[in-house]
């Protein structure tokens, strides 16, 4: 038995009537990686906020190496050796890496900067843990993965012995995530203790020694990673067995949307290069690829927010020039944007307003420039009911919905109109298992009803489960399509790496 560095002892915390943490107890050993697994809203982030002193628990205690940690004092938590790597980095993009790391550690009352000493310390930490990064690079110029490294280095610079990572892979590509896990394991080997928060089963199995499962604010199980399985964890996390729905074979219809050698240029850079695809009614065409390879341009092009620079788009067999937002909506193209909080919905507006905004000029929702509020609210009400949006009604501010329910709203406002085409970019990203299953089921229902679905995703499981045909997007180019029944994860991995480009050359 290794020495226990952290002990959480029956910690409870309520917000109003909502018991976010209910008598939670867990321990963390030296050199151990513990995954805190749970759905969105299970209480993971609340627990870690208590640990880091952001919240004061209603009951319970926290002990670090046997000594009580005073509640509600982030400074005490830092002093005790707790470091937190936030999901949304708390770094300043206009400062250099070194300046970011030093921020908050230097006293304001000293004439001399400690930059020299800090640089040496940063360098030795980077070497020791394999976190290579240029101390003089401006943070804003770094990739997300590198920025996360800086955030980790910052915690280590403050002499953290216990590192908490809040959904560290949410912003990373698959490759970056693997690098991160290797780093975490190295850190654990060197005696650091880590807790990482996640709702992704794959990474929990890949990285953790031990898994603590939270559900509804309670610890429902604790397992050694070696002695459990993804299936068991999924069941523990959700409380019942969830199976992601899988497509059934059925015949596809005619081609409804075609791209012929379409390019998109943004600020002088070709984001899409002569991409061609043919999307048929009643099929799901999966576009897989590591993020940043042109997915945003493809989604923007087909959602009507980006114009093409070359090539043709054919809608229902006829060339249509550029799509506009109004044109796509009117043509029966449903659109699910990649970033639901930035593009998909406006948080400060009511659910009903978000439900009808893209259709507000249609005569059923407005006449002579006046909003028919009753009709709009009724439309939103039907979506809330039919698509099982929980946590609010048509008049609720949309920001108050959870990610999954917001996604159901966005899905609902598209599918309620029985679109002939659905452009879905990362439709299940960041959702918990229950919500993923719901979103997938809806997409498959639409496919069955004859909707042509273009699914842009980084999640291999998702694409394999839903898509009939798959094309990979690499550096703005699309691979030729392959049938989903004829490929496995390995073949898809090669496609995402661009192996088809060498064959063509």
């Amino acid at each position, binding site marked *: 038995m290794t020495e226990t560095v952290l002990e959480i002892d029956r910690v409870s915390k309520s917000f109003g009537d909502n018991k976010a943490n209910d008598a939670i107890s867990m321990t963390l050993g030296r050199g151990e990686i513990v995954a805190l697994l749970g759905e969105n809203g299970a209480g993971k982030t609340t627990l870690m906020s208590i640990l880091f002193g952001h919240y004061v628990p209603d009951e319970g205690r926290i002990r670090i190496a046997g000594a009580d940690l005073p509640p509600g004092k982030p400074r005490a938590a830092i002093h005790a050796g707790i470091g937190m790597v936030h999901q949304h980095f708390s770094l300043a993009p206009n400062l250099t890496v070194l300046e970011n790391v030093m921020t908050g550690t230097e006293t304001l009352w000293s004439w001399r900067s400690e930059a020299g000493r800090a640089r040496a310390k940063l360098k030795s930490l980077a070497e020791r843990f394999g976190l290579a990064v240029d101390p003089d690079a401006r943070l804003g110029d770094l990739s997300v993965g590198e920025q996360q490294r800086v955030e980790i280095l910052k915690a280590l610079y403050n002499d953290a012995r216990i590192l908490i990572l809040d959904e560290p892979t949410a912003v990373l590509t698959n490759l970056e995530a693997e690098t991160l896990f290797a780093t975490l394991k190295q850190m654990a080997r060197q005696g650091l203790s880590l807790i990482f928060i996640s709702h992704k089963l794959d990474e929990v199995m890949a990285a953790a020694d031990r898994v603590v499962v939270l559900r509804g604010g309670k610890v429902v199980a604790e397992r050694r990673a070696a002695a459990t399985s993804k299936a068991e964890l999924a069941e523990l996390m959700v409380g019942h067995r969830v199976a992601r729905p899988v497509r059934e074979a059925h015949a596809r219809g005619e081609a409804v949307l075609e791209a012929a050698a379409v390019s998109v240029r943004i600020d002088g850079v070709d984001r899409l290069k002569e991409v061609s695809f043919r999307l048929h009614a009643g099929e799901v065409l999966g576009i897989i690829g590591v993020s940043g390879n042109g997915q945003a341009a493809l989604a923007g092009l087909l959602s009507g927010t980006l114009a093409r620079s070359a090539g043709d788009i054919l809608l229902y067999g006829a060339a249509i020039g550029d799509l506009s937002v109004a044109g796509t909506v009117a043509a029966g193209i449903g659109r699910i944007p990649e970033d639901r909080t*930035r593009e998909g919905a406006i948080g400060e507006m009511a659910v009903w307003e978000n439900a009808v905004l893209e259709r*507000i000029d249609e005569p059923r929702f407005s006449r002579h420039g006046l909003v028919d509020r009753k009709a709009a609210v009724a439309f939103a009400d039907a979506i809330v009911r039919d698509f099982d949006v929980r946590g609010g009604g048509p008049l609720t501010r949309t920001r108050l919905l959870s990610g999954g329910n917001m996604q159901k709203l966005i899905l609902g406002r598209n599918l309620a109109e029985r679109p002939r085409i659905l452009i879905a970019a990362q439709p299940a990203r960041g959702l918990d298992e229950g919500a993923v299953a719901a979103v997938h089921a809806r997409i498959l229902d639409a496919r069955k009803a004859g909707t042509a679905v273009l699914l842009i995703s980084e999640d291999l499981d998702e694409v394999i489960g839903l898509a009939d045909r798959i094309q990979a997007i690499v550096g703005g180019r699309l691979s030729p399509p392959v049938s989903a029944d004829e490929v496995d994860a390995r073949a898809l991995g090669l496609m995402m790496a661009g192996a088809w480009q060498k064959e063509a050359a």
Partner: protein
Amino acid sequence: MRFERREHRPLALIVLTPLLAVAAALALSGLLIAAAGAPVLEAYWRILVGAFGSRLSATETLTRATPLMLTGLAAAVAFRARVWNIGGEGQFYLGAIAVAAVGSQLLAGAPGYLSMPLLLLAGAVAGMILLIIPLWLRLRFSVDEVVTSLLLNFVAVLVVSMLIDGPLKDPLAFGWPQSQSVPDAAMLPKLMARSRLHWGFGIALVLAFVVHFVQSRTVFGLKSRAAGLSPEGAVFAGVPLARTLLFVACLSGGLAGLAGAVEVMGVKGYVTTDLSPGFGYSGIVVAMLAGLHPLGVVLAALFTATMFVGADGMSRALKIPTYIADVTVALSLITMLVAVFFAQYRIRR
């Protein structure tokens, strides 16, 4: 101690917020009154008497509130759509000088039913143009309109100052820099005899209701709010961003220009560089006090006018400076900002 965002704001809280803010501002300025050696409660009483104690003072307060309502609406409309129009003062002056120019040069002999609406329009258009410039700079080059619209205030006042000392100078004003007058036929009729209260008050009141209707019921209101809250979200939903913000700028700049037009046509008849005691800037305070609600603007403008007009009476009776009104209004903005914060967040220990 820390702050958490309130997820549900009860209606009572929304209504109470400005009232508490004003009460706090009055209490704080009471300290200053006491420091000046005057009885605090009597000072407040004198302010009320000064603002509403006689028919003359009451109409004067309403006259003072008129341009404040319009500049307040201008700021509220713009801020709702996150167009940070700090240029109300410049738009006010351009609206005023447009009225003086068009009224004295082009429409000098026109009958009132023709010249009045045309002059109001001229004032509004002048204000619009002054706000379209910063908006265009923002849309085209991402220049912050807070800076540009603010700096254009000084440009506008200097242009006015040049015009009233040059081409538009009134030759009968004994050399004072003063514009030629709007013909009597184009002056807004008085709302009440033997007072300065004019039809501009009615216009401002009606416009407050019109703006409220536009914001709460029309497609344009919905789209402009979306554009302000989340440009990306609005674009994704097909809201034409540039066009929507351009309309907002026209509305906002037009209202501020109208304030200047109404002040010239209702009260002064001509333009000087002290036509506005900061109506454009006070409009921002009014809009904030009103929580950016158009009908709230009416009340906030009345409060501000009450303080300004009432402070004169208090000053005469108690021999303390009228600056106390400026202090109270300024304090009420600060307390309002604090109150809005507490209405949105709650304290947790």
